[in-house]
């Protein structure tokens, strides 16, 4: 393989790798944004919307970088808004719906613990742009983790009803947690280059941290060993199409729309 091929393969892997990171935050940001005006109280409504905006701010940095790497004239908006469902590589967890507030919190909590561990490692990336985005995002994500962990404890260790709802949400969403730790070819390649994070090494710490919070919340750590996967390969759940319809509506109806 000559240098040019090697270089183009590296760029392809880097581009896919950036999407693997950014799509999680974009889709979760969209889910949290759906609660704008529909939160359980004015205060939690604003909190959820703030978190959504934090995530969308982070994805702008990633997609701008991806657009630069792709170098084919596409902008951050094209990459964020105009791909087909199969081209999104977020994990299945983040596209799961806001069934109730317990699901919203459980989904975000199960993501936050991963996100925090992931960004902590990504700060050490040889790719200085990714390291800088990770460093900046980490402060926001530390707060997200604190916010959702607090709510897990409040609802888990709250009333009989809130405990039961929180347990149901955790049990249901548990099956989506293992997907984080199955590396794609881009993730493997980037980890080998010292650009990406070796996610398999985060697994034990992830489940230890999650279990610690659940136990403090008097919730049972699910024992199920059956896990869904596919999102990272573009095979999504039935919820994804509806989410994308709402996400992409403006750009598709008014192409090249700008605020």
């Amino acid at each position, binding site marked *: 393989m000559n240098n040019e091929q090697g270089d183009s393969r590296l760029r392809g892997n880097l581009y896919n790798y950036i999407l693997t990171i950014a799509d999680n935050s974009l889709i979760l940001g969209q889910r949290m944004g759906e609660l704008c005006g529909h939160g359980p*109280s004015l205060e*939690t409504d604003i909190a959820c919307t703030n978190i959504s905006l934090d995530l969308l701010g982070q994805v702008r940095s990633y997609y701008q970088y991806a657009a630069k790497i792709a170098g084919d004239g596409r902008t951050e908006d094209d990459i964020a808004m105009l791909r087909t469902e199969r081209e999104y590589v977020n994990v299945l967890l983040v596209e799961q719906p806001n069934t109730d507030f317990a699901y919203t919190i459980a989904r975000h909590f199960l993501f936050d613990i991963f996100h925090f561990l992931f960004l902590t490692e990504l700060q050490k990336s040889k790719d200085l742009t990714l390291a800088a985005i990770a460093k900046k995002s980490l402060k926001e994500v530390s707060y997200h983790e604190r916010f959702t962990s*607090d709510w897990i404890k409040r609802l888990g260790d709250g009333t009989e009803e809130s405990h039961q709802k929180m347990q149901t949400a955790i049990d249901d969403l548990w099956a989506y947690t293992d997907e984080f730790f199955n590396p794609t070819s881009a993730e493997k390649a980037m980890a080998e280059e010292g650009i990406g994070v070796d996610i398999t090494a985060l697994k034990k710490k992830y489940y230890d941290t999650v279990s610690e919070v659940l136990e403090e919340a008097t919730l049972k750590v699910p024992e199920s060993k059956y896990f869904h996967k596919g999102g990272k390969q573009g095979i999504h759940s039935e919820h994804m199409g509806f989410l994308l319809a709402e996400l992409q509506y403006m750009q598709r109806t008014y192409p090249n729309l700008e605020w």
Partner: protein
Amino acid sequence: MSENKKNWPLWEIFVRSKNGLEHRHFGSLHAADADMALENARDVYTRRNEGVSIWVVESKNITASNPEHNAEMFEPAKDKIYRHPTFYDLPDEVKHM
């Protein structure tokens, strides 16, 4: 907790905008306890970079003056301008008074 499970108690929020300034009353919000009040205040009142420190106090712990007593409470102070320190000649060297 109170009998009324549907409503969280009201909290008064004080924010210090910059180090060196005092905390000022920013508004009020609902929260189940002090920790939640702090987090809610962070999101409601400091998301546009308004603060460096937050105090919260449950509204019921604040004793307020009664507006009906305003006549005897505040009006007597209205015509006592001699209580303002404006009748002294300050030397020019004193700049910040």
